[in-house]
């Protein structure tokens, strides 16, 4: 098999003088960018550019910079010309509670715009400890390979024996082959190999970077997995100061009112919380509350199956859970997770209230390597079409598409992963499925081709706006504007000058809220940290972030500069999708949210006024939704 070794230009401790003068060292960075061309097997590396790191930090920020600079417009997501970029940020692998995350970005084969997914666990920090901040993969291997990065030794290894294996089998097989269980593996499953366009990349077995089809991109490159093991130590500019700030953060976290619930239930506490405000995606968003929600709640999982709390790298909130599902129907079903999204996916959304079955479905998705959100959308969409007489059983391989039918749900997961029969129609995502079927487009719950998450945004207006404008398509993690759920009107006045910003059903000021949280989300993704601590618990404001970054990097960040970096990332992503033709008319939501009042709660989502306010807050053209040249100049993006 092809073998290529790379020797980074920098010294073992990440010493570089690149651009910043003699003796300059990039603190808190791995220091190196790795480039792998799968077509000819060539591997090379260069120092991480300090000026880019200062402008985009890392992770999602540096990833979009690469995509913008190096990917031609309208690149086919599944072509060898697409590039796949893995990135970690300066706080990944540090003491930061939740500094565990990495981003994987490319042109999305699912949406045709920006592809970008993020996962926690242990892969990101391990990649950082190899001394790499970013890995840029181009071309297409002749036959299946996996990429093995062990510090500065890089190998493309034969993966023909792994092709056809699921994410779990592949991960364990690679760890065994390399003889080290601490090798962190991000792998694809059979779904990606079979060309499912919403196939993701799975780290630590149950840690999905599953949105926008990054697994499909890997498969198109014949890349089965990326395995990393790092033994580098990463310096900080002022470690004593860094530790001091982290100790303060730990104490904020331990005293946070949500701390106990988070470490007991993680995000699964949202089943009950969203049910109470009419925001569950019951039967494909036909009902915001489900009478049987308690049976599938995080509390029910905790009481019946939780073995212990689990955590991502170096996190002081063990919000994940390891489960042993003692159910004779699913012998040996043990898994970490699930989070709220996949849990609601296979309960409320598809009308199933049998908890072990839902956990079994989540496990199937993780093993096949598919996005549980998209999977639950195409299944529940089919069920609604059937309910409305728009789809006949014969068209769906004779399956019984009644709500909650377990045989059908499970069969469809298998069919999607293998692109068999009716599953083949669904495997490109709901937008493509509706177009191919020629029916049900008005019921397809997506924005920009990405399926809507597990909450009814008619009950949470800022989330609606956030989904409509998100750069990777319908998605809450591009903004996560939780503030509207706080009810703290005084804080609303203090922050945005508008008390209604703290009211989830109000509209006024939500453009400002979403702008603010989009920038926070961009910063957390660029730093390689978790949104639970950074966005939801808000352990650091802009100034606090700047102080931590000063200690980490030695650069004289200000709070304003950090906010500007967030804004720069959001704007560059907007430029990227604008290049693919996205304008204001694409910043929309499924018809159901905009026109059908939520049964029992009586509300639709009035998007347009929020959009106007949002574009104005962004300094974008209100008619087109595109960044103005003045705004781009202000952010230093004029020539980028």
């Amino acid at each position: 098999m092809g073998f290529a070794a790379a020797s980074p230009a920098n010294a073992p401790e990440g010493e570089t003088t690149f651009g910043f003068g003699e003796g300059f060292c990039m603190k808190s960075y791995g220091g190196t960018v790795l480039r792998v061309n799968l077509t000819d097997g060539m591997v090379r590396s260069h120092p991480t550019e300090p000026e880019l790191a200062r402008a985009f930090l890392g992770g999602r920020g540096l990833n979009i910079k690469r995509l913008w600079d190096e990917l031609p417009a309208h690149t086919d997501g599944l072509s060898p010309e697409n590039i796949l970029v893995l990135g970690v940020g300066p706080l990944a692998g540090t003491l930061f509670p939740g500094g565990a995350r990495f981003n994987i970005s490319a042109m999305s084969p699912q949406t045709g715009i920006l592809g970008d997914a993020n996962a926690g666990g242990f892969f990101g920090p391990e990649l950082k400890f190899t001394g790499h901040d970013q890995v840029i993969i181009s071309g297409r291997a002749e036959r299946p390979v996996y990429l093995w990065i062990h510090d500065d030794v890089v190998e493309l290894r034969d993966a023909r024996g792994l092709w056809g294996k699921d994410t779990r089998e592949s991960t364990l097989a690679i760890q065994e082959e390399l003889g080290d269980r601490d090798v962190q593996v991000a792998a694809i499953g059979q779904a990606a190999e079979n060309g499912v366009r919403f196939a993701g990349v799975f780290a630590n077995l149950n840690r999905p970077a599953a949105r926008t089809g990054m697994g499909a991109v890997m498969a198109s490159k014949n890349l089965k997995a990326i395995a990393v093991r790092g033994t580098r130590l990463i310096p900080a500019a002022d470690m004593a100061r860094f530790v001091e700030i982290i100790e303060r953060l730990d104490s904020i976290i331990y005293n946070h009112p949500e701390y106990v619930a988070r470490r007991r239930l993680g995000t699964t506490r949202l089943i009950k919380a969203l049910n109470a405000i009419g925001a569950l995606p019951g039967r494909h968003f036909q009902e915001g509350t489900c009478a049987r929600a308690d049976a599938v709640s995080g509390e029910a999982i905790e009481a019946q199956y939780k073995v212990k709390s689990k955590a991502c790298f170096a996190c002081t909130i063990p919000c994940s859970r390891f489960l042993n599902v003692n159910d004779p129907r699913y012998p040996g079903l043990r898994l970490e997770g699930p989070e709220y999204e996949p849990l609601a996916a296979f309960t409320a959304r598809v009308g199933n209230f049998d908890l072990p079955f839902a956990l079994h479905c989540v496990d199937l998705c993780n093993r096949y390597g598919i996005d549980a959100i998209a999977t639950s959308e195409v299944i529940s969409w089919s069920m609604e079409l059937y309910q409305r007489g728009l789809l006949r059983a014969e068209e769906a391989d004779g399956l019984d598409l009644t709500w909650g039918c377990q045989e059908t749900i499970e069969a469809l997961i298998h069919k999607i992963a293998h692109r068999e029969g009716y599953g083949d129609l669904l495997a490109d995502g709901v937008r493509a499925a509706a177009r191919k079927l020629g029916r049900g487009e008005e019921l397809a719950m997506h924005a920009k081709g990405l399926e809507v998450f597990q909450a009814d945004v008619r009950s949470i207006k800022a989330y609606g706006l956030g989904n409509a404008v998100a750069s990777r398509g319908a998605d809450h993690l591009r903004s996560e504007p939780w503030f509207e759920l706080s009810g703290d009107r005084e804080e609303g006045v203090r922050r945005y000058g508008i008390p209604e910003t703290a009211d989830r059903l109000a509209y006024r000021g939500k453009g400002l809220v979403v702008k603010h949280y989009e920038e926070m989300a961009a910063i957390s993704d660029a730093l390689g940290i978790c949104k639970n601590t950074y966005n939801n618990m808000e352990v650091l404001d802009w100034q606090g972030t700047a102080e931590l970054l000063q200690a980490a990097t030695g650069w004289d960040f200000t709070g304003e500069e950090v906010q500007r970096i967030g804004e720069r990332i959001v704007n560059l992503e907007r430029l990227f999708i604008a290049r693919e033709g996205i304008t204001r008319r694409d910043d929309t939501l499924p018809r159901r949210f905009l026109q059908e009042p939520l049964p029992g709660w009586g509300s639709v989502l009035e998007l347009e006024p929020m959009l106007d306010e949002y574009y104005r807050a962004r300094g974008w053209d209100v008619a087109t939704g595109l960044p103005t040249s003045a705004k781009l100049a202000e952010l230093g993006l004029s020539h980028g």
Partner: protein
Amino acid sequence: MKPATPACCGARQAECWSGHGPLRSASPLAERFFLGRPPLGSQCAAGACGASPEPNRLCLSVGDGSMKRIQIHPAACSGCRACMVACVVRHDGRFGTATSRIYVAKADAAGTDEPRVCRHCRRAPCVAACPTGALHRDEEQGVVRVRGAECTGCGACAQACPFGAVTLHPQAGTALICDLCDGDPACVKRCATGAIEYVGCP
């Protein structure tokens, strides 16, 4: 290999030091040596470590009662490895895990997390195995210590330790053993779950 059961004190002889049954086996030298970290070979026989969250308050060194030890409760461990980073930050002043003196053995599929750290055994097998005398026991402090200059990196200590608690520095090759941070262990301080405790022996 070493006998399966560690030399625990008194009536708790048969119990695992984690409190959940006897240790199965220690890890083979080759794997530990060449692959950086010992594999998961010495898990609790009781499995899952979910058996009892109640820690077993045993200690190996029956000192004068004032001595404190790091105690491990795998059932409470979330596997986050914050202890490892805290250890490296304290000893090396940098971020990382490779030179940590505490190690959390993780098995993602089984969901187990097992912290391993030096127990500062009174009759320490690592000290006995050390051919150069680099390893010695500071009887006053009750701590096994390494004289770095004398350590040849032969790995005999890592081989001898029945707990997989000794590893070798990935670059220097010398022995990495917990020094209890001179009485203020950074790992314990950072642990969010109480899985590692610094407590006096009864």
